[in-house]
């Protein structure tokens, strides 16, 4: 018997627990010639703000061993631009659509959330409380328990969509942040965002990125992310979406054993656009090999 891969996460039905991560897969059309979107569990689109936003100056990305540092700065076409330009395309696909949202103030976050309540085809909102690239924005929220609580509660009050705060990795006690999100109405959690990081060109003695620093993603951060997921899973009951350096089914399965109900592929889309599909297949064959009936048997199955 073929193991079942489908899950319902925070009320969102997905064919399988494999998603593509915000900022690494555009808004859908970009990779569609290479990756059949209908095969994915969900797409999390690049972070959307109330108004269009230009992001940082270039250079915005630099490769480092085992990863990359990005400081895109959340460039996006705004709620209206995104909805008009990309939602028709996404609605035409059989895929759960999770919109990643951000704001510079709590009001902006809540307003964005409220607007997406009216948009057909949006299945959930991932709240980026943790982007390391916008100075005004997310970072301060995501590393402070009080503002995390306030932000999540405020967004909760303005939308009926499932909300999924995306946690910052650079905190000492991820469990506390997970708990405060759960207590304030989060339906699920995404963890983690990229790590504040920096590269310097030693010849010019200038930061490589125009924004000085950015966020580290890729295989380099995977073992740290696994630990954070493991800790968060101990603190909360709501489902976790894990991401950070997934390049193979093995990495994804590690996350699920540690406590994640679903996973998202980020940087690896750039390296190998077919990674998400390979992860789906790899999970399926792992389940078959281990005689597990459903992918849910993997979740939190760690043996201590």
């Amino acid at each position, binding site marked *: 018997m073929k193991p079942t891969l489908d899950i319902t996460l925070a009320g969102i039905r997905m064919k399988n627990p494999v998603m593509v991560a915000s900022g690494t897969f555009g808004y859908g059309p970009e990779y569609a010639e290479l990756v059949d979107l209908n095969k994915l569990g969900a797409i999390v689109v690049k972070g959307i703000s109330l108004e269009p936003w230009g992001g940082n100056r270039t250079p915005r990305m*630099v490769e480092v061993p085992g990863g990359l540092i*990005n400081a895109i700065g959340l*460039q996006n076409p705004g709620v209206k631009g995104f909805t008009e330009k990309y939602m028709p395309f996404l609605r035409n696909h059989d895929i759960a659509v999770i919109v990643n949202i951000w704001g510079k103030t709590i009001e902006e976050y809540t307003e964005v959330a409220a607007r997406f309540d009216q948009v057909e085809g949006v299945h959930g909102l991932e709240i980026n409380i943790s982007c390391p690239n916008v100075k005004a924005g997310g970072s301060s929220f995501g590393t402070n328990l009080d503002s995390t609580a306030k932000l999540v509660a405020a967004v909760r009050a303005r939308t009926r969509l499932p909300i999924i705060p995306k946690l910052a990795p650079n905190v000492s006690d991820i469990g506390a942040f997970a708990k405060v999100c759960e207590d304030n109405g989060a339906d699920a959690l995404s963890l983690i965002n990229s790590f504040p990081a920096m590269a310097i060109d030693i010849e010019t003695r200038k930061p490589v990125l125009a924004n000085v620093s950015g966020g580290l993603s890729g295989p380099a951060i995977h073992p740290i992310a696994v630990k954070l997921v493991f800790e968060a899973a101990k603190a909360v009951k709501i489902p976790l979406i894990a991401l950070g350096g997934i390049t193979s089914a093995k990495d994804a399965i590690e996350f699920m054993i540690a406590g994640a109900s679903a996973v998202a592929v980020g940087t690896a889309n750039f390296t*190998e656009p077919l990674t998400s599909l390979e992860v789906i297949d790899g999970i399926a064959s792992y389940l078959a090999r281990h005689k597990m009936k459903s992918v849910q048997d993997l979740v939190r199955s760690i043996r201590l």
Partner: protein
Amino acid sequence: MRIENGTIVSHEPMGPDYRVLILKLPELAPLARPGQFVHLRIAQLHDAVLRRPFSIYKAEGSHLSILYKTVGRGTASMQDLRIDDPVNIVGPLGNGFPLDVPDTATPVLVAGGYGVAPLYFLAKRMKRRGVLFIGGAKAIDILLVDDFLELGWEVQVATDDGSLGVKGLVTAPLDAWLQTSLKGARPEFYACGPNGMLKAVGDRAIKGDWKAWLSLDRHMGCGVGACLACVQKVRLNGQETLARVCKDGPIFEARDVIWED
């Protein structure tokens, strides 16, 4: 756009600093147009998460070639690629050059270093002939001159150290030619090389009210328009906006580009 596992058909040096890699890519190669590029995964560079972009230098039947210079750790480890090794390619990517030169115009290609690669592909696919201006640091950076001559093109060379052609920037012979040889013809420019060169060509085109198609070189993440790493400020329908060099480019008309540095 395809993703395809190619195999290496040939991998030969072109002078001391450059190499030509010929790949068998039966699905992808036939789709290639001049000015487009491919995104190459260097599998033996385990710790690299990004592919490397290279202009398409030739596409004939099921073979696709790139011409590359070794500049960093990716291109350095590409040197170890041997015949029959597999290479994963995403492409063809980007918009490519417009191929329809107006009948009244003379195509003028301006190349810096490996920038000559896509221009050679363009010259081969263009119906008209014209003139190539090629510049580089030294004689060894001046590539494909004979190939252009064989296609019936005029070639003018400049090197920084004067070891081949005139000494100085490629704009020197270009300016001379524009002054003396135009004779009423309208040039249409196609340029690929460093930013300074592109800007110089663009400035001349704008001043002369000619068109200049510039191939921009930006560090890239995804190569397909998803990550927004490669943006360039442009003017579109009078509006300032950020274009993705990988997807909306790499070819832009000079008037559309807003240079910031």
